[in-house]
C-alpha cells in the first residue's frame, strides 16, 4: 500500500504570497554572490522560493555540504547514537572510539525516561571505549569485547548493548559484527553493532538509516524467533506503536496519552522512553504511527514489507493537525475508536480555545523563520498557524526530496526555502526578511538574539516542553509568547544613542 500523505492543511484561499516572489529570488541571488564560483554553483540549487501549485519546494537536498560553509549539520553517529538508539533506556549504548563524540552527545537531547539511571536505565550516561593511540594502531576489537563483559558485570540489569561506531572504527578495519556476536553469546543478551561512523553520508540522516537497518538486522530476528516458537502474544486489534518520537521534554507521553484516550493500545515507543522489549514486540502491532518520518520511515517501510504492517504519518503539533491526525488514525480502526476520537477532540476543545483566546491576540500576524532538522521545518508550521502566526521561511538541515514534497502541504506561496543553510545565508536572509521570531537550534540562538531577535529552539524546545499533543500546544503557545513579548528586547540599545527623529 502507498503510505498516505500527512493530512493536508486547507490551502490558504488568498494567494498573496508571504514574501514578494521576485524580490525574494533577487535576495537569493544577492546572497549567493559572496561565494566562490564552485561553491555558488552548488549552493544555488538549495535555495528557492516556494510557488503555489508546485509539487516540491524547488530545492535539491541530501547532498554533501559545502566545505567551509558553516553548515549546521551533524554526522551519522549523531543520527544513530544521538537520535535513534540513545533514547532506548534499558540498553547501554557504547560510543565506540575516542572520547569526544560520547562526551558531546551526553545528555544533550532531553529524551525523558522513567527509570533508575545507572541501575535499570542508562539514558543520561556516557559509555565509551575512550580510544587511545594504541587502539588505533592495534585495533579496538579486543578492548570492545572486554568492556562489554565489564559493563555487564557492573550494570547487570541492562537488557542489551549497542555499539555506536565513531569515525576511526571503519577506517582501521575493526570487525565489530564479530565482536557483537561473540559478546552476545558471552553475556546472553542482545548486542547490536552499528556502523554509524561520522564520515558516512552527508548528515545525521544516514545515521538514522543505518540505525534503522541495525534494528532490522539485529533486533527483529528475535521477534521472528519468538514468532516461530509461538511466543508472540496475539495482542488486540488496537495495538499500535509510536514511531519517531524521541520524547524530548516528554513529547511522546503527551502524544501517547491521546492515543490511549481514543482507545488504542500503545505497545512501543520508538525510541523516547522506549525499551528493547518494546522494539522486539513492535512487529506484532496492527499499525505503525510515524511522527518523525525522516528518521524512522526506513524501519516503518521494512515492517510493512516484512510483516504487512501499514504505517501512517501523523502530526501532533497544534490543535488543527492533532484533530486531523486523530481522525485519520481513527479511520484505520472501527467505529468505537472513531467515536472516541471525536470525543477526545471535543474534550480538549475548551482547553485549546482558552489557549488560542489568551495567546492568539498576542501573537497573531507575527512572522516566523524556521530552520530545523528533518521533520519540524514542516511539522510545526500548523501550530504557528493555529496561533495566527505566519511563516516567511523554512528549511531542513538534513531533509530529503520527499520531505520537501511533503512541505508543500504546509507552507504558503512565496515562502523562502533554504536547504542545509549556511550561517552566512541564514543571517543574510533574516536581515532582509525581518521575521519577528526565529525558530531554529542552539548554534543559531545567540546569533539572532544578538540581533535583538526573539528566538526559540525547535530541537530542544529551549528546555521547555512537551510541545506535542494538546497539553504540549498550551506550552508551545506560552513559550512563543514569552519569547516574542519579553520586555528584555526593548532594553537593547542605549537611550542616549537612539537617533532622534527630526521633527
Amino acid at each position, binding site marked *: 500500500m502507498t503510505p498516505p500523505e500527512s493530512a493536508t492543511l486547507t490551502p490558504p484561499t488568498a494567494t498573496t504570497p508571504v514574501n514578494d516572489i521576485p524580490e525574494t529570488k533577487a535576495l537569493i541571488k544577492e546572497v549567493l554572490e559572496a*561565494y*566562490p564560483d*564552485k561553491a555558488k554553483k552548488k549552493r544555488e540549487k538549495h535555495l528557492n522560493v516556494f510557488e503555489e501549485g508546485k509539487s516540491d519546494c524547488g530545492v535539491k537536498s541530501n547532498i554533501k555540504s*559545502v*566545505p*567551509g*560553509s*558553516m553548515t549546521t*549539520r551533524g554526522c551519522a553517529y*549523531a543520527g544513530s547514537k544521538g537520535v535513534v538508539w540513545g533514547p532506548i533506556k*534499558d540498553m547501554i549504548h557504547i560510543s565506540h572510539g*575516542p572520547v*569526544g563524540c560520547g*562526551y*558531546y552527545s551526553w545528555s544533550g537531547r532531553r529524551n*525523558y525516561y*522513567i527509570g*533508575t539511571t545507572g*541501575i*535499570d536505565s542508562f539514558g543520561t*550516561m*556516557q*559509555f565509551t571505549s575512550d580510544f587511545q*593511540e594504541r587502539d588505533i594502531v592495534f585495533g579496538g576489537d579486543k*578492548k570492545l569485547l*572486554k*568492556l562489554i563483559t*565489564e*559493563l555487564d*558485570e*557492573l550494570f*547487570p*540489569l541492562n537488557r542489551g548493548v549497542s555499539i555506536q561506531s*565513531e*569515525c*576511526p572504527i571503519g577506517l582501521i578495519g575493526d570487525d565489530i559484527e564479530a565482536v557483537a556476536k561473540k559478546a552476545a553469546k558471552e553475556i546472553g543478551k542482545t548486542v547490536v553493532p552499528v556502523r554509524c*561512523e561520522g*564520515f558516512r553520508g552527508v548528515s545525521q540522516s544516514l545515521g538514522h538509516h543505518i540505525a534503522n537497518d541495525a534494528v532490522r538486522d539485529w533486533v527483529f530476528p528475535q521477534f521472528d524467533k519468538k514468532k516461530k516458537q509461538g511466543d508472540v502474544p496475539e495482542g488486540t486489534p488496537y495495538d499500535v506503536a509510536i514511531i519517531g518520537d524521541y520524547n524530548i521534554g*516528554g513529547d511522546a*507521553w503527551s502524544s*501517547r*496519552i491521546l492515543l490511549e484516550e481514543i482507545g488504542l493500545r*500503545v505497545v*512501543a515507543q520508538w525510541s523516547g522512553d522506549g*525499551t*528493547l*522489549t518494546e522494539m522486539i514486540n513492535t512487529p506484532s502491532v496492527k499499525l505503525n504511527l510515524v511522527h518523525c518520518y525522516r528518521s524512522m520511515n526506513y524501519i516503518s517501510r521494512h515492517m510493512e514489507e516484512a510483516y504487512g504492517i501499514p504505517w501512517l504519518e501523523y502530526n501532533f503539533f497544534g490543535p488543527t493537525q492533532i484533530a486531523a491526525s486523530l481522525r485519520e488514525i481513527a479511520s484505520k480502526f472501527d467505529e468505537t475508536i472513531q467515536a472516541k476520537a471525536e470525543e477526545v477532540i471535543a*474534550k480538549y476543545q475548551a*482547553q485549546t480555545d482558552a489557549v488560542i*483566546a489568551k495567546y492568539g491576540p498576542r501573537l497573531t500576524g507575527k512572522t516566523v523563520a524556521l530552520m530545523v532538522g528533518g521533520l519540524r521545518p514542516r511539522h510545526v508550521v500548523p501550530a504557528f498557524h493555529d496561533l495566527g502566526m505566519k511563516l516567511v521561511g523554512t528549511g531542513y538541515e538534513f531533509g530529503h526530496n520527499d520531505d520537501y514534497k511533503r512541505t508543500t502541504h504546509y507552507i504558503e506561496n512565496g515562502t523562502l526555502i533554504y536547504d542545509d543553510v549556511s550561517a552566512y545565508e541564514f543571517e543574510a536572509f533574516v536581515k532582509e526578511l525581518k521575521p519577528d521570531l526565529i525558530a531554529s*537550534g542552539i548554534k543559531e540562538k*545567540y546569533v539572532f*538574539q*544578538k540581533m535583538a531577535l526573539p528566538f526559540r529552539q525547535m530541537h530542544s524546545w529551549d528546555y*521547555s516542553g*512537551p510541545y506535542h499533543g494538546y497539553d504540549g500546544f*498550551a*506550552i508551545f*503557545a*506560552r513559550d512563543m509568547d514569552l519569547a516574542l513579548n519579553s520586555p528584555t528586547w526593548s532594553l537593547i540599545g542605549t537611550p542616549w544613542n537612539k537617533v532622534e527623529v527630526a521633527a
Partner: protein
Amino acid sequence: MAQNNVNDIQDHARLFHQDEYQELFKAKKEFEGGHSSEEVAKIADWTKSWEYREKNFAREALTVNPAKACQPLGAILAAVGFEATLPFVHGSQGCVAYFRSHFTRHFKEPFSAVSSSMTEDAAVFGGQLNMIEGLATSYNLYKPKMIAVCTTCMAEVIGDDLQAFISNAKAANSVPQTFPVPYAHTPSFVGSHITGYDNMIKGILSNLTAGKKQETTNGKINFIPGFETYIGNLREIKRYADLMDVNYTLLADNSEYLDSPNTGEYQMYPGGTKLEDAADSINAEATIAFQSYATTKTREYIETEWSQKTYVSRPVGIRGTDEFLMKLSALTGKPIPKELEEERGRAVDALTDSQAWLHGKRIALYGDPDLVIGLVQFLLEVGAEPIHIVVSNSNANFEGELRALLDSSPFGQNATIWGGKDLWHLRSLLFTEPVDLLIGNSYGKYLWRDTKTPLVRIGYPIFDRHHLHRYSTYGYQGAINLLNWIVNTLLDELDRNTIIPSKTDISYDLIR
C-alpha cells in the same frame, strides 16, 4: 485534564506529576519488559557497596561518564581568542556541530567554526580537495583575518598532511599567500581538550611569530590562559596588569568573543588578541601561563625556539594570587599597588568570616588538572579537606605536583588522587567514603542525585546554571567568589536538611 488552567500552564516540570500521566507511566510498564522494583532496589543498593567499588575499580577497558573531552574542542577555544580568527576543523563535519553546541550551551554566546566536511570519498582519497574548497569558501563568506586549522580523528587516522594541504590550497588561490593559516594536528585519541588547546596555541604562535624576532625585547609580559572557561578570569588578569601598569599581551584572549555586549548587531569576531600583538609575543620579556597542563608543549616551544623564559602561575586563592602578583612584580619591577593589598585584605576578611563552616569539611572534586590544583590551593587555605580527587585527563607530572601540594598542608593528608578515573568511579567513592561537598561541572548533578552530596558547580561545562562563567575564580575577588559558592551551598544544604516542621527544624537557624 492535566492542562486545565490557561493561566497556569504546566510544562514538563509539573505536567507529568499529574495523575493521568502517573497512570500512563504505570500502565506503560506492561510493555517495557523491565525488572521488578525489588530487583532494581537490590542492585541499586549493591552499587553503593565496597564490593561494587572494587569491581568498579577493576575495570580496564570501559569508561563511564569521563570528565574529559577531545583535542579539537580545546583547539578551537584557543583559536577564537585571536582577532577575527575562524576555527577550521579538517575532517568529518559532525564534530564541529558538537563543539559549537557545547560551547554555546556553556557560554550562551554564538560560536563560529567551520568544517571541511569530509565524507567517504575523502576517507579513501584524503581530504585535500575539501581543504582547498573549504578554505576558499570560509575565507570569502566569513572574511576572517586568520583561519586556524585543526583536525578530527578521521583526518588523523587517514593521515592527512595539513602542512602540504594548506600550501596546496594557497597555491590554488583558496586564500592569499600571505594570509595566516596556522594549523595543529589534534588527534582525539591522544590526550584531551587541554592537549588540543596546547597544540593549537603552539601552532598559531609559531605561524604568527615566524621571522618576527627582534634584537631587543618589547618590554612586555605574555599571558596564556589555557583552557579557560571563566571570562571573569581573563578580565581580572587584565585588570591586575593594568593596575600594576604592566605592559602585557594576553594571548588567546577570548573574553570578548565569549561575552559580547548585546547591541542589536551581531559581530562574528568580537575582540581577540590582535594578530600583530601575537606576532610580537616572540619579543616579550617572559611568558606566564595560568595553566601548566594546557600549555606544556607551548612553553617548551617558547623556551627553546624563542629563548624566552616561561612560568606557570595559578592565581587561585589568596596565596596563589600573592605568588602571581609577586612574580609579575619581580619580572617587571613594578610594585604591587595599595588597591590590590586592600582587595586582598577584604578577601582574607571574607575567608575568616566563613572559616568555621569550612574547617574540616570533606570535599570531593574533579576536573581538568590545573583547575583541580587551583581549587585544592584554595580548599587547603580555608581548612577544608580534599578527599577524593578525580582527574580523567591526568598525567604523572600532574599527580606529582598535586601530591606535593597536598603534602604541604595538614588538610591535604587524607586526599587520594584518582588519575585517569571517571565519574562512575567517583560515584563508588562517594558511596563508600562519603564527603560533605562535591565540586565539579554540571555532570556532577547525577552524583548529587545518586549520593545526595551537595554539588558546587565549578569547571566546564556548566549547562544547567546561568552566568557562572562570567565570574572570576582568579585573584582575590575570585577567592571571594569561590568562597561564596562553596559556603552558601553548604548553608543551603544545612537548611534543606533542617526544614521539616517539628521534625528537623530544630536547627533551622536564622543566623549562621
